[in-house]
């Protein structure tokens, strides 16, 4: 959304609108306790009094092309066209902590995101972009997040940008990443240590940076239902916060650094109620469990990605309608950031045309429909309030269950979350296959494929980026191997002790170490194999 875009203060026929509506006269106790006006705890009705009148949600399109250079071009294009936030998605090898020239990566480097293997990659991707003037969010849930942060900080240093000016986020969410294979077999202890290092470091040195984004979206995509999605995400956030508090950090400095990125599914009212219930639970947990004093610690920020799993390959244009309803749920639910899965997602990587439809969907909802004009427009609806209460009850019951297992870390280790996901995923798919849950074009109102005029699978899978693989090999040839060895040896010693590893990551990447080498060194210090997939060893990458 462009900075000048605003929600309107009146209806199409000229009726002036308040920023929000509530009970007439003195509000009853129950209202104050359960709902509160928008911008007032427990924030059921939204985080801000004026909501989208003051500022529309942040519009972003995920971006990650085959090389850092190509990604840079696209990012600068998006900035020129009014995008205020960068949403960067690294490729799968980078997500897994594998170098671009790793034997298993050679076939996927740069195909589903941008490769960020070295400090030079990060620098090239951000060339000519004012890091102090834009928020940069990285969709990186797993172990690579702290290394990419170190790359980002090194780039800021090169350009003389103070860290306090950096805004953005990493996902940094190992408990979730364990379940989407994005952890590449990293033990939870190591994942939690790196996650907490990063939270601590950001809280102390990068006050405007979100240290952690709990990825509820992928929990939902893995089969969980709406209350499970939120309950598990909040329990995960609780585990991270407790670990960081244990290191002596103040909850009121930590809490504002946490974001939730949620899915928005097709059941409109349940989704709206879900967001409202999530804010209420968060607010109470922060105050009652963590003893937060400040309102901004209790106000949950929610970013939304509409559900890729709700989209289907047959008659793909139907997915535009699904995305619209889901985006509507996010807006009515009071989200702070929104992006849409593109309508071609079930059959292809997003085309430019599909990405444009996604952006336009948001703009039509914001500027034409009036749904953003009033904060929490469904507040007070008997139906929506009842759904909100019921979802909250179910979420709290699940959070209690997780607490009963000793918290989210033991629950994950014991396989509780994995079992829940597998069961829910299978039940969901089966109910669609059996036709109990209706999906138009999939189990009812079918069109034979030959007559499916809306089907447009191009089917050209992208090729791995030979240029990037060559660039990384070149990088290895031109760096000072002794300097790399020295920083990695030092890192190995630190990793075996309690120190925060972010500064040591930074020294290593500045000396020329690659992502895979940094994480491999940490793995070795933890008694693990250097390479998470067991295909290479340390000597082969260092050329010794």
């Amino acid at each position, binding site marked *: 959304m462009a900075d000048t875009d605003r929600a309107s203060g009146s209806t199409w026929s000229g009726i002036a609108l308040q920023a929000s509506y509530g009970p007439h006269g003195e509000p009853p106790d129950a209202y104050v306790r359960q709902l509160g006006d928008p911008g007032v705890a427990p924030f059921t009705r939204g985080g801000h009094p004026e909501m989208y009148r003051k500022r529309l949600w942040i519009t972003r399109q995920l971006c990650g092309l085959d090389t850092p250079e190509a990604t840079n071009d696209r990012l600068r294009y998006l900035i020129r066209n009014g995008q205020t936030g960068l949403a960067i998605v690294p490729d799968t090898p980078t997500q897994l902590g594998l170098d671009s020239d790793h034997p298993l990566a050679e076939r996927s480097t740069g195909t589903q995101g941008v490769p960020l293997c070295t400090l030079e990659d990060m620098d090239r991707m951000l060339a000519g972009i004012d890091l102090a003037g834009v928020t940069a969010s990285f969709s990186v849930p797993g172990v690579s997040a702290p290394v990419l942060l170190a790359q980002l900080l090194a780039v800021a240093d090169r350009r003389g940008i103070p860290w306090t000016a950096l805004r953005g986020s990493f996902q940094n969410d190992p408990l979730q990443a364990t379940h989407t294979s994005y952890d590449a077999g990293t*033990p939870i*202890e190591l994942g939690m240590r790196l996650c907490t290092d990063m939270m601590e470091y950001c809280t102390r040195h990068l006050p405007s940076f979100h240290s952690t984004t709990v990825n509820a979206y992928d929990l939902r995509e893995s089969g969980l239902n709406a209350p499970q999605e939120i309950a598990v995400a909040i329990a995960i956030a609780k585990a991270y916060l407790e670990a960081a508090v244990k290191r002596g950090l103040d909850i009121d400095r930590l809490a504002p650094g946490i974001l939730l990125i949620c899915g928005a599914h097709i059941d409109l009212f349940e989704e709206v109620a879900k967001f409202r219930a999530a804010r209420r639970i968060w607010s109470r947990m922060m105050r009652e469990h963590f003893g937060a004093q400040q309102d901004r610690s209790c106000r949950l920020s929610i970013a939304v990605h509409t559900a890729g799993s709700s989209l289907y390959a047959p008659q793909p244009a139907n997915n535009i309608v699904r995305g619209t309803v889901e985006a509507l749920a996010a807006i009515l639910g009071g989200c702070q950031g929104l992006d849409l899965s593109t309508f071609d997602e079930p059959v292809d990587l997003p085309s430019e045309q599909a990405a444009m439809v996604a952006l336009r969907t948001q703009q039509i909802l914001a500027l034409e429909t009036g749904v953003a004009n009033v904060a929490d427009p469904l507040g007070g609806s008997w139906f929506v309030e009842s759904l909100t209460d019921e979802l909250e009850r179910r979420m709290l019951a699940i959070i209690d269950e997780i607490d009963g297992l000793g918290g989210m870390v*033991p629950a994950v*280790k*014991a396989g509780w979350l994995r079992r829940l996901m597998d069961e829910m995923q299978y039940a969901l798919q089966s109910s669609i296959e059996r036709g109990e849950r209706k999906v138009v074009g999939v189990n009812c109102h079918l069109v034979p494929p030959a007559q499916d005029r809306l089907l447009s699978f191009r089917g050209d899978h992208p090729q791995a980026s030979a240029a990037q693989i060559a660039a990384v090999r070149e990088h290895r040839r031109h760096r000072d191997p002794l300097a790399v060895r020295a920083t990695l040896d030092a890192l190995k010693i630190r990793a075996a002790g309690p120190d925060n590893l972010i500064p040591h990551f930074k020294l290593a990447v500045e000396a020329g170490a690659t992502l895979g080498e940094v994480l491999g060194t940490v793995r070795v210090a933890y*008694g*693990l*194999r250097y390479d998470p997939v067991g295909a290479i060893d340390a000597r082969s990458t260092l050329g010794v």
Partner: protein
Amino acid sequence: MTAPISSTAERVALARRISAIERQACDGGDALPAAPRVAATRSRVLGITGPPGAGKSTLVDALIGRYRARACRVGVLAVDPSSPVHGGAVLGDRIRMHRHAGDAGVFIRSMGSRGRTDGLAPAVRDATRALAAAGYDPILVETVGVGQTELGIVECCDLRVLVLAPAWGDYVQAAKAGLIDLVDLVVVNKADLPGADSLVNDLRQSARRDELEIVRASAERGEQGIVEVGLTLDRLWAALAAERLAARRLEAAAAELANRALALVARGPLERVTAAGTTQRLAAAVRDGTLSASEAAALLYRDMFGSSP
């Protein structure tokens, strides 16, 4: 001395032999031409049991690595439950052993339990023999882990290892009532989870023997726990081989023989009287209360064997 790896042709032949064993076990032909005769002294057979999620496959993976470092050919039989309803199974144990894929010195075979309820699959016993005949030593047998009386490893394995973790209270209670007296080693996995200390104490107190070995392992301890498991297994094997191995194997072979003989004796006659409708008729009488179950069984026996039991 066996070479530490086997050729692809040998591996293919071995795999097909195990398939033949499986098919015949399934067809009910117990007098198996495919089942090998193997002097059991050749290979040690280690049974790994415990509840799902306690870390059996991870332990097996680590042990494979350890034995491979000593240039042993390692055989693995990993059993997962078959559905009693439709007979299908998802066998997922290879995932944890992925790093050994392509190592020609490791032979991993997944099996569905196919109706057995003692934690094994019908073909396991003979498959261990086929592996031994092909020079695999040790042979690691990973049980289903769902049942709480997985006594199959007693019949089939020289050394029996029970893997537990703190979060499996119910299983631990059941194991304490039986399995724990039959295993040689308990590995307390995920020993960094809350409750590990009390689990170890609990096991020590409830074991009827002083010599029950307990080793703690966890991701935090990394290789250290595994090294300890491996050393303990070596020590236990040396002690067993010196003293009771022959006796233990005789006991196991006797039990296996009795089970197979029982099945052979009963199957033919039972199929015959069932085909004739006798079983059904007597069952109806039991249902309706005109015969007691033991009376009906005696009548069935007479029909099967022509004499009274």
